[in-house]
């Protein structure tokens, strides 16, 4: 090895400069005062805020382009269709999907999973079959499968987690059986922030010929996602967690699977021709988009993904990781505070409890200081039960948070301790 090569290896490449002040300026809501203090928004895992780029894209669409899509021959119908389909292409590029035929617009992650459960599930799952999930799942990746199991006679199985919040991969491997028809797991846990080893999960499942659905709601805002590299079969996410509006989300489905799936909802736009006796269904992906879609939502999602691309998913992830390490260290140093979920691979989520103080009281006291966090069961009651708690307090970080936000959180928690003793 040459001296130069050794020197190059010893010096890590400089971290790309991330201008968080510039990012914050893009989010008008961050200028708000809450209870007389500047807002500290630490609830992005529940819903993120919107940058000007998204708000302006929606305004431009609504003020100059709107009509119904895929219908009229008039100019606006064409501009609306172009804007909508352009958003689909942006999503394809963002997820590294092969084709826009694999990108279905839905209301959100919940609807995406329900689509798979109803369409793919009802045709591929029968009595005695099993769906395998984990204890980390959000209710939206539990209840649709319970409903499918009730309708088909299949069984829902769940792989447990280890005390640090990581998936027990050995238990998962054991639960994966000849009866398993589908594996449906979170890419990132919303309650704990654990990043699941999805590549390994897909590898194990595919070795048995079992398709895999990933709930990516908490993953896409925090890391680059490549569905081809992961090799998953379904990938679902919501726009509002990645700086887009509510009411728009995406189901990615491998084309060979999607092509065999019956339509889920019937109506306009999902057909080619309709007679009274029967209809011919539209091509992919429109076959799964009955009715007039959320066009401006899709436009907003496209703008949000381009915004994230402009900052760089890797740069956002690095910035958030710095905040996660800072927050973890500062919170762990507070007396009688317990971190819930300390997996080695984590997104920027810190879940915790404080001895003698209910999370709801923590939430109210922090709010009085202008600090917004989530308290409760985070729509993930099974994992709360696994940890023997009814609720936790959760601070979650986005591209716009900074070190001062962490300090304000710590100050607020010190105030909680002072009040409750």
């Amino acid at each position, binding site marked *: 090895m040459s001296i130069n090569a050794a020197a190059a290896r010893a010096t890590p490449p400089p971290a790309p400069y991330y201008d968080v002040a510039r990012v914050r300026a893009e989010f008008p809501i961050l200028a708000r005062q809450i*209870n007389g203090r500047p807002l500290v928004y630490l609830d992005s895992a529940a819903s993120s805020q919107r940058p000007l780029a998204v708000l302006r894209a929606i305004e431009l669409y609504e003020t100059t382009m709107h009509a119904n899509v895929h219908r009229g021959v008039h100019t606006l119908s064409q501009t609306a269709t172009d804007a909508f389909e352009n958003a689909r292409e942006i999503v394809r590029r963002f997820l590294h999907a092969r084709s826009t035929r694999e990108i279905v617009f839905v209301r959100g992650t919940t609807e995406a999973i329900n689509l798979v459960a109803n369409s793919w599930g009802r045709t591929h799952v029968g009595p005695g079959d099993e769906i395998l999930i984990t204890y980390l799942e959000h209710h939206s990746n539990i209840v649709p499968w319970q409903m499918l199991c009730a309708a088909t006679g299949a069984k829902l199985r769940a792989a447990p987690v280890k005390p640090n919040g990581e998936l027990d991969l050995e238990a998962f491997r054991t639960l994966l059986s000849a009866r398993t028809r589908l594996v449906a797991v979170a890419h990132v846990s919303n309650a704990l922030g654990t990043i699941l080893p999805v590549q390994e999960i897909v590898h194990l499942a595919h070795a048995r010929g079992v398709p895999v659905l990933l709930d990516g709601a908490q993953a896409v805002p925090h890391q680059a996602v490549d569905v081809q590299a992961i090799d998953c079969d379904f990938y679902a996410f919501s726009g509002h967690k990645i700086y887009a509006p509510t009411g728009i989300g995406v189901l990615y489905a491998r084309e060979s699977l999607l092509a065999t799936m019956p339509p889920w909802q019937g109506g306009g736009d999902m057909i080619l021709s309709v007679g009274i006796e029967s209809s011919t269904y539209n091509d992919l992906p429109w076959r799964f988009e009955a009715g007039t879609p959320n066009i401006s939502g899709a436009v907003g999602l496209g703008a949000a993904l381009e915004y994230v691309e402009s900052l760089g998913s890797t740069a956002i992830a690095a910035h958030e990781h710095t905040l996660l390490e800072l927050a973890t260290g500062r919170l762990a140093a507070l007396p009688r505070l317990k971190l819930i979920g300390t997996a080695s691979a984590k997104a920027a989520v810190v879940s915790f409890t404080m001895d*003698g*103080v*209910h*999370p*709801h*009281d923590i939430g*109210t*006291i922090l709010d*009085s200081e202008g600090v917004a966090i989530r*308290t*409760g*069961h985070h729509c993930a*009651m099974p994992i*709360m039960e696994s940890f023997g708690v*009814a*609720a936790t307090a959760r601070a979650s970080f986005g591209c716009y948070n900074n070190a001062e936000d962490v300090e304000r959180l710590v100050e607020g928690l010190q105030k909680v301790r002072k*009040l*409750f*003793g």
Partner: protein
Amino acid sequence: MDLKELYRDVILDHNRSPRNFGRLEPADAQAAGHNPLCGDKLTLTLRMQGDRVQDLRFEGQGCAISTASASLMTEAVKGRSRQEIARLYGEVHTLLTAPTGELAPELGKLLALAGVAEFPARVKCASLCWHTLNAALERAPAPVSTE
């Protein structure tokens, strides 16, 4: 929005050392309350003497507001008749949701909950115990009328 108004000393005290905490065995009636939003759970057991609540206990887990409210409630209703309790519940409900400024003196220590009205997200925490008490009273045997 004044935190000190919400977390008054009486509230903090009853949260730290809830009164009438536990379970009556045997009991004339029992009811469970659950606030799915925050996971608060409360079980109430009571014994009747004719028309009156002779004794009652509560147990469960909840926030300071829900625990203190339940603790204060048990003290306030012990020995009272169904009708007196119904009237008191009406006063508490007004105090929590639409305070008029004229505070009913019979509320006594329950007035410590006056700060809750300013925090709409927390009203359910304070009222959970009262809904649970109402459910228990509905189940409790009514006295046999001799008229």
